[in-house]
């Protein structure tokens, strides 16, 4: 599952944050309504925990 983030910088920051919490994430890029954006691809089982961590650090778009 994918979680859009603010930018490439936040994608890298988010990936490292999740890694520190034992969650593996992959960075990807695609385009949407407002143009290009980066996202973190996270497995279903870790999605809720990852989303909370990323939200707490204001990494999500």
């Amino acid at each position: 599952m994918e979680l859009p983030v603010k930018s490439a910088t936040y994608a890298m920051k988010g990936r490292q944050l999740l890694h520190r919490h034992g969650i593996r994430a992959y960075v990807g890029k695609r385009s949407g309504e407002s143009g290009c954006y980066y996202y973190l691809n996270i497995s279903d089982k870790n999605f809720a925990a990852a989303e909370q961590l990323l939200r707490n650090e204001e990494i999500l778009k």
Partner: protein
Amino acid sequence: MIYFDNGASSHPKPQCVVKAVGDWLRKNASNPGRSGHRLSMEAAELVYNTRVALGDLFGVEKPENVILVPNATYALNTVLLGLFEKGDHIITTDLEHNSVLRPLWHLQSKGVEVSVIKVDFEDDEKTIEKMMRSIRSKTKAIVCTQCSNICGRILPIERIAERKPKDVLLIVDGSQGAGTIPINMVESGVDYYCAPSHKGLLGPQGGGLILINNRIPRPLIYGGTGTESLNPEQPLALPEHLESGTLPTAICAGMLAAANYIKDLGRKKIHSHKRALTDYAYDELRAVSGVELYMYPYASKCLGVIPLNMNGKHSGDTVEYLDQKGICTRGGIHCAPLFHLRMGTQSRGMVRISFGCFNNDREVDQLVRALKNLK
């Protein structure tokens, strides 16, 4: 060859920096933060790691608050032109480089008021007092150097931060201090810190940084950021808000290697080395007949830079003579016009001896011998 022009650009660079730049260009010349393929992602990760390493060096908690720019002049222009407007008042000093002064004069022509205070070479408390007395209701910022590029005088940044009112921003030109004088962005109370990669930070030319600890300035330039491409507005998030256009990844590789090198070596050690070298050079230079040492009485408050002249000569003639002896120094005004006007050396300039972390006492001895032989 002896290189005493580290105030302009440090030389030589640590081998790890040279290797990092070359290796990166061979390995991956893709665009960071623009595409989704693996090479672009690796490049983006390198840029991110550069922010983290530089942030660690300066106590910046959020990597996104480390803005990568082409040089310190660009950094200072971004902050100064991006924060102030007509009616605002800014305080600065007579030790500043034109990278601070020219943007300020430009702002002055647009209705910003600028006060220049004379730095007290002897007593920091008097300098701080002058700054505080200059503050009025419209004062928005104090802008000053961490260490003068022409005389090496260190300013009491932390104490200025302590004494100023909270709503007056402190903007620091760290061009000569970065990499040598430790500063922590959170503990020091500095709001914006600007520095180049290629001086004390020992990185390549073409890189610089802004460390942001307060509100975000308006961008100096607008353009592609690799995100929100259909939005006509510049993205609001840092660092992209202030970083339009492709970042120089190979330069970042060099900055990252340099930051790690400095971290390993330790800024206290670099600082002590430059302190010892400055003291030794002043002691030895005093014995040279005809030498004019402008800052000798304040030597203990100056670091890494010694301005001098010889026998009433034009600085350019002395620099040329030293160059013939294999010693690189810099003459002229050093882009610090107010200091020269104060010292009365605007016509002949000064010879600047500026030390780096790879200089040593034996090189100082050779300089002294050369100056003793100057007719």
